[in-house]
């Protein structure tokens, strides 16, 4: 075959088109990190996760938590054909049993006892899972979105904008670094104090506190990817830029973000609980959320300490589940540990 100069633009005619396709496919193969089994990154990661006990435990916990969050509200109160001792989480069903200095513990009718307003603790715990999950997810989403925007802009400016672009990037990163220097709880505290006392304020505040991490992560990932050899190789082979970004840079940048999101979910729940404890959450304690429940249990500590223990253990286990899963994913993706 005669040697022809490599062309960047799409050549006319079917031959040219075929060549471009072949190049693209070649670039794809070249871009996939080499692995002796020739697996894709996702499949290999999933395989390693399946083997890791940490991942399995974490994933199981998360799964159970999500299931409870989804069906909890459906069971409280339970449909008539389900003979479970569950009630509506906001009804003071056992009010008559509450005396000053006395809150009944577990009994046949109430497996976890009552809370200080006579509501069934177990029902509140089951219902509260959903609200807790919501808090974690929303806060993480806020953090991720805001962080992705800032980090994405910074990374793009750095890569595409020349001198001005790099200047923009450094200004943004200076700001992000300062946010990072603040302890997340206190940062969230500041935001929540300003926004007022509501659960929404808490979610936004925790999300803001998580933003700098995502911003840093995404920007760093973008810049690192852009410099990777396989991108240079693909470019030199004639693969077009947007395709490189979409099929290679983006998926590879996604992995650490997923890991971080999982870890952030865990800390979001804990931070939200902390903020509630400090009095920044929703003062209305009717609809249960584990963090608020834990915070309000403080007042009953002398009378019925278990009211603090149930939500605390639930939070700890759930946060642990997400953390285990996140850490396991991080290990699975770490190229250094990849054989």
């Amino acid at each position, binding site marked *: 075959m005669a040697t022809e100069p490599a062309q960047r633009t799409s050549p006319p005619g079917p031959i040219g088109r075929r060549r471009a396709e072949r190049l693209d496919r070649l670039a794809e193969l070249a871009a996939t990190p080499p692995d002796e089994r020739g697996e894709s990154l996702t499949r290999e990661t999933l395989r390693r996760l399946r083997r890791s006990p940490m991942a399995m435990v974490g994933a199981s916990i998360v799964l159970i938590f999500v299931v409870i969050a989804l069906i909890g509200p459906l069971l409280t109160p339970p449909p008539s054909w389900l003979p479970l001792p569950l009630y509506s989480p906001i009804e003071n069903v056992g009010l008559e049993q509450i005396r000053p200095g006395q809150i009944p513990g577990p009994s046949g009718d109430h497996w976890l006892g009552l809370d200080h307003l006579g509501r069934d603790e177990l029902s509140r715990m089951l219902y509260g899972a959903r609200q807790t999950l919501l808090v974690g997810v929303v806060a993480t989403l806020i953090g991720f979105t805001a962080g992705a925007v800032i980090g994405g802009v910074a990374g793009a400016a750095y890569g595409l904008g020349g001198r001005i672009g790099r200047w923009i990037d450094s200004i943004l990163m*200076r*700001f992000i*670094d*300062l946010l990072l*220097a*603040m*302890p*997340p*709880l*206190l*940062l969230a*505290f*500041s935001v929540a*104090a*300003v926004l007022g006392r509501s659960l929404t304020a808490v979610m936004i505040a925790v999300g803001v506190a998580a933003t700098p991490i995502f911003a840093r992560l995404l920007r760093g990932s973008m810049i690192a990817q852009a410099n990777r050899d396989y991108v240079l190789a693909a470019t030199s082979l004639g693969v077009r830029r947007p395709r490189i970004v979409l099929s290679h840079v983006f998926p590879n940048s996604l992995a650490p973000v997923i890991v971080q999101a999982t870890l952030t979910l*865990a800390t979001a729940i*804990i931070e939200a*609980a*902390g903020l509630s*404890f*400090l*009095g*920044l959450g929703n003062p209305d304690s009717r609809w249960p959320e584990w963090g608020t429940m*834990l*915070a309000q249990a*403080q007042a009953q*500590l002398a009378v019925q*300490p278990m009211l*603090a223990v149930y939500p*605390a253990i639930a*939070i*700890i286990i759930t*946060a*642990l589940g997400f*953390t*285990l899963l996140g*850490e396991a994913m991080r290990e699975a993706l770490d190229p250094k540990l990849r054989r």
Partner: protein
Amino acid sequence: MTRFIIRRLLQVIPTLAALSVLLFIWLRRLPGGPDAALLGERATPEARAAIRERLGLDEPILVQYGRYMKDLLRLDFGVSTQTQQPVIDEFLIRFPGTVELAFTALAIAVGVGIPVGYLAARRRGGWLDNLVVSGSMVGICTPVFFLAFVLKWVFGEQLGWLPTFGRQSPGINATHVTNFFVLDGLLTREWDAAWDAFLHLLLPAIAVASIPFAVIVRMTRASVLEVLNEDYVRTAEAKGLTDRTIRGRHVLRNALLPVVTAIGVLAGALLSGAVLTETVFAFNGIGRFVYLAIQNADYPVLMAFIMFIALTFVTINLLVDISYSIIDPRVRVH
């Protein structure tokens, strides 16, 4: 070196300025208007008028901002609505308590954390190692204030080993010089007061230390594991040096570098922990004060606290940057 510091300081100023603007905007949008918010419940019409005058609320906004900044720079944050005392004074009274608490917690976290992390790394895969890895993960997932509850209930109320209320027992008559209670006791030679204050510090300090401890142990362990694989450790072994020399000069001196950089994170965890823990033990520090400020809508205090956090951690960040260049000769500005 000084040029480095000055440059970093200059980079910090825009953000602090931006923060002051944000707080200013927030101030003006507080419920009831800034005059009512700053005065709290005891807002008499005269007081409100006085405040309006002082803040220049009828003047153009830039003038208001100017006055606001002037006050800020003079560290005049107004008067606490709870105590009617200047905010800055209230802070200065309570700050030493929190510092004592944080310091004790840090001492515990470092003093126990580094050896444990080192041992876990040395005996990789042993029971200590596994305990450390799983324990630190659980520690990070436990809300600090719940840990405080547990400590208070177990060691305070059930076992009665340690005091759980306040900074000093009511019976003790202590003279306070610096408001660092333990230090005061030592300075005035009131040994029982010093000891009593110390005991009061222990439980809250353990609670506050939990997260820094988990962080330090994990970092030390990871860092030591990495360093143990380094070639220069192999060289040290090849030279036949003693275990102690290798551990001290070659392993730890390198392994602890990242831990030093984590001081910034640790300081954050310490202050957060203090804010969460002081209330549980009715420990009279900044944390508790702020908690009460939230409960009582004491905006001047809250604003001052936010500014305080920003300033503190910006400073710590800068100090860490500088110290790292001192400790690691490779980073030193050539």
